[in-house]
């Protein structure tokens, strides 16, 4: 009464059942050197796209009590090159360009004249560590209004005194917690943490918060995505 797999009909049945698993062979594309990188890049791109979809400008990053702060001495300094690019703080200006009504050089005093926001938020490094840190500065959104930026532009692009560069999508730039920070732990930014002005983005991974800013451009087209992004890290990386 049995259907022996060894008989002819049984064997063709087994073969058909095995054939139904054959789409799994498509995974082999990941083993082909020429296809591997493009496939993985599109995987990251898709992830970036998805996380930009569930980003909500009204969803604030959790804030913390002063007692929960990581002491400044234990806030790790991550730089790709130098801790102090040697900016002359007295002559420093932020050069603003792109799709803005009032391009030009902005001094720290001009920026500091805008409403100051201070928050204790979690800084998350792509390496996996985190710290609860206190930064103060002006909302990027307020600064963009001040310079007359076109808020329908897609990106902010910044360059830094240490040749680092970064890009930021407009939705995140307009988030109420996204800062152009000039203070940390209620004192002026230290050299190694980005004096005189840096980005502080509680809704982005750490490497997006560029230090030692020198230029800021409002644009639809990015020349480059960012220092780490251009080497393979995710470009959006919202938290």
């Amino acid at each position, binding site marked *: 009464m049995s*259907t022996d797999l060894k008989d002819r009909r049984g064997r063709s049945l087994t073969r058909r059942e095995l054939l*139904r698993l054959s789409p799994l062979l498509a995974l082999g594309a990941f083993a082909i050197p020429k296809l591997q990188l493009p*496939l*993985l890049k599109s*995987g990251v791109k898709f992830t970036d796209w998805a996380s930009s979809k*569930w980003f909500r400008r009204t969803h604030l990053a*959790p804030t913390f009590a002063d007692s929960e702060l990581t002491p400044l001495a*234990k806030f790790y300094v991550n730089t790709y090159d130098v801790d102090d690019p040697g900016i002359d703080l007295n002559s420093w200006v932020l050069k603003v360009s792109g799709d803005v009504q009032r391009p030009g050089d902005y001094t720290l005093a001009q920026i500091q004249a805008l409403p100051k926001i201070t928050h204790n938020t979690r800084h998350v490094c792509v390496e996996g560590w985190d710290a609860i840190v206190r930064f103060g500065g002006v909302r990027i959104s307020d600064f963009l209004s001040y310079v007359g930026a076109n808020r329908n532009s897609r990106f902010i692009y910044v360059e830094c005194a240490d040749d680092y560069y970064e890009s930021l999508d407009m939705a995140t730039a307009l988030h109420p917690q996204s800062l152009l920070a000039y203070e940390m732990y209620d004192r002026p930014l230290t050299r190694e943490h980005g004096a005189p002005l840096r980005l502080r983005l509680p809704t982005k991974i750490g490497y997006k918060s560029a230090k030692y800013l020198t230029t800021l451009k409002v644009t639809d087209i990015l020349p480059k995505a960012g220092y780490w992004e251009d080497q393979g890290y995710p470009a959006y990386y919202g*938290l």
Partner: protein
Amino acid sequence: MSETPAPSEPIENLPSPAPVPSALTENPPSPEAEVPRRPINVYEHPWPVRFCHWLNTVSLFILSASGLRIFLAFPSFGPKVPQKTLIHIPPALTLGGWLAGGLRWHLTFGWIYVATGLAYIAYEIFSGNFRQILFVPRDIPGVWPMVRHYFFFGRKPPETETYNPLQKLAYTSAILLGVLSVLTGMVLFNPVQFSFLAALMGGFHWARVWHFGILCALVLFVIGHLVMVILHGWNNFLSMLSGWKRDPQRLG
């Protein structure tokens, strides 16, 4: 389990499994007992189950190796300053070459893993197959006898269902671990957008610990799973490929 087909039945109809498992019943001894009876073949694993099983095997392997690569960037659960390296993971066990490479593999296969898991769970629910593997309260009394059998040479409890209570516990736990691995991973990747989930897990920091702990638990499951497959023979392995299993306990 599908019934033994009568020879007159068209063979094409064979692979449609009855979704609800019936208890394994021994065939009653037939009057013509002189005819030698051979083990019959039973259709054990419908193809969606086999498909998801092997796809998930690949994803789990890649996610573990690339996850260890990511962990190497900060192999600690403590503060960054001062950093105390908790575990030394040999780079040979990792995938991606460096942090960005590990992230790429992890983020890409994370989606394949999620899609596979959703497809599998949907299939189990709509086919009714989940009843074979879902651990339910009435299975609790049967766990200890199985543990005694496997680990302390106890008597083998009689089989009443396709899978024994310990097996059901293992399979249900593995699925649960899969779900939790995705949820903890989502918190690690987007702790702000999923801040409510992060809070449930005790915050970003703890989510990282859970995510790692789940990896360890899944590795234990895989080891146990492989040991059982080896102990129970080649036929078990083949049936996860072709769906058919030669069952020596059922004679035709």
